């Protein structure tokens, strides 16, 4: 089986995101970057398949600026077979639908059986690229996937829904957008890191792919921190019963939520 994973580099999840001086973007100076968490789960699902079936090859692709190369290096160190970097002047500010068209072009050339994406990247949190990529390819897609298995007649895909999982069967190639799944993404092994260091990562220029980069824009007009909270009432003295009574009274009479 041939799997293509689409990954994006975003600020690491431990980063406290600050608003930049322009008031409409995030201040990314000096921050740590990482593969978007759901994309890491997508890589893990693909690599688990490779663990069970060594015939499986896993390629990883990203559309992003020069720094995004580190994310590809990380994916290779985790165990992916090859990486493709789609980059160039427009790579950082390309809209979701344009990114989807670029990824579709890569998928057209690579001809994978499955394309895996994280369900959303933790920067814009749009969750657009996976379903849009499937639409450009004319393939079906399944969202919030936690597991897939090859079966007679196609691939069974477990989709997390409220209260359980729906199992869908794709009879041909499909795009899966991956949810947090059972296993945590693996850490790169030392031999993996050494191997990844020497691997070539081919670069493709986004502007020369021959895809339409005009897409409806979602323009950020203003960015701000969430409203400040704090200054809450802390009950710390007295026994449990007294605190329980006091809290119930506050929730009922002051907050009016009981």
């Amino acid at each position, binding site marked *: 089986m041939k799997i293509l994973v689409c990954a994006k580099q975003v600020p690491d999840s431990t980063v406290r995101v600050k608003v930049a001086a322009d008031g409409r973007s995030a201040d990314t100076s000096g921050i740590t970057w990482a593969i978007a968490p759901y994309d890491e789960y997508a890589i893990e699902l693909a690599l688990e398949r490779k663990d069970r079936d060594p015939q499986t090859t896993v390629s990883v692709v990203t559309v992003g600026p020069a720094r995004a190369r580190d994310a590809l290096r990380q994916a290779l160190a985790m165990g992916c077979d090859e990486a493709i970097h789609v980059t160039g002047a427009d790579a950082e500010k390309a809209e979701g639908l344009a990114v989807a068209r670029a990824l579709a072009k890569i998928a057209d050339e690579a001809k994978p059986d499955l394309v895996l994406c994280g369900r959303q990247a933790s920067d814009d949190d*749009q969750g657009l690229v996976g379903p849009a990529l*499937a639409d450009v390819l004319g393939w079906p897609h399944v969202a919030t996937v936690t597991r897939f298995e090859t079966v007679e007649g196609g691939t069974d895909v477990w989709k997390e829904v409220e*209260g359980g999982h729906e199992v869908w069967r794709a009879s041909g190639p499909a795009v899966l957008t991956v949810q947090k799944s059972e296993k945590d993404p693996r850490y790169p092994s030392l031999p993996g890191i050494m191997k990844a260091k020497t691997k070539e990562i081919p670069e493709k220029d986004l502007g020369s792919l021959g895809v339409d980069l005009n897409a409806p824009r979602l323009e950020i*007009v203003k960015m701000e921190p969430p409203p400040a*909270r704090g200054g809450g009432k802390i009950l710390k003295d007295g026994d449990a019963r007294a605190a329980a009574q006091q*809290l119930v009274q506050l929730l*009922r009479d002051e907050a009016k*939520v009981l």
Partner: protein
Amino acid sequence: MKVWAVVERGTRDRTGAHGPDLRRVSHEIAAKAASLGDATVLDPHGSGERSSTVALAAALTERAKTDRPDLILIGATPAGRDLGARLAARLGWAYASEITDLKVEAGALLMMRTMYAGKVRATVRAALPAVVSVRPSAFPLPPDAASPTTEPIQVDASAEKLGFQRFEPTASATGRVPLGEARVIVSGGRGLKGPENWKMVEELAGTLGAALGASRAVTDAGWRPNEEQVGQTGKTVSPDLYIALGISGAIQHLAGMTSSKVIVAVNKDPDADIFKVCDYGVVADLFEFLPAFTEEVKKVKGAG
């Protein structure tokens, strides 16, 4: 302005199939659509069949060709976010997911939404036509709101290369209110010490009619199913009341729940970060406090 609201029906317990009732967020977007202009409320689940996102998007795209709406509103449930993205791509329209506010200004949409997993909020602008998924509770329903008149949409799944096989319920799922739409959430963390102690959490949640949430530490440990996780790589929630039990308050968790109206935190560590965002905090041993609190809540609830 022509506005569509695409509604969703709630799922039946233990079968995962669509039941007869519209979800709360569907009522909310139908009312919002009516307030924005000439509204049509479309129901692709009327037949009770389980359709793939592709088939739903295709049916709605066909209808949009003749109806020409300016704006399509969809509830930002897991299914709604999925459909919204595919539909926007199919139509080639602008798309914004999980918006929390929206107005039309000079022929464009101005919307509020969070970014970076809830760490910042942004005002965004998109040209019309557009598809937008709306976060539950963003437009609270007036108490006297009438049920919308819905129009069924025929979905043809015969050409699909994707077929539904079966539904596998999560063993520990309680069939309660979906987390994203719950008005009250009781969330447990590592301070509960083990899955066997969730009986206490469930009892409080049952008394309050609340949904169950969990911290990442708890879902990672396998104490609770992943779908209950609140925060980054889980759900972003904004209930009227969020009760955090034994949760220390990692930044990834806080990002997913700080827009709750009232936050209650119970933790034995007075320095826990969760106390920095709470409205009411209790520094106490959970195992002493929680049974007493549940009992007191029962008294109040019983009284009226």
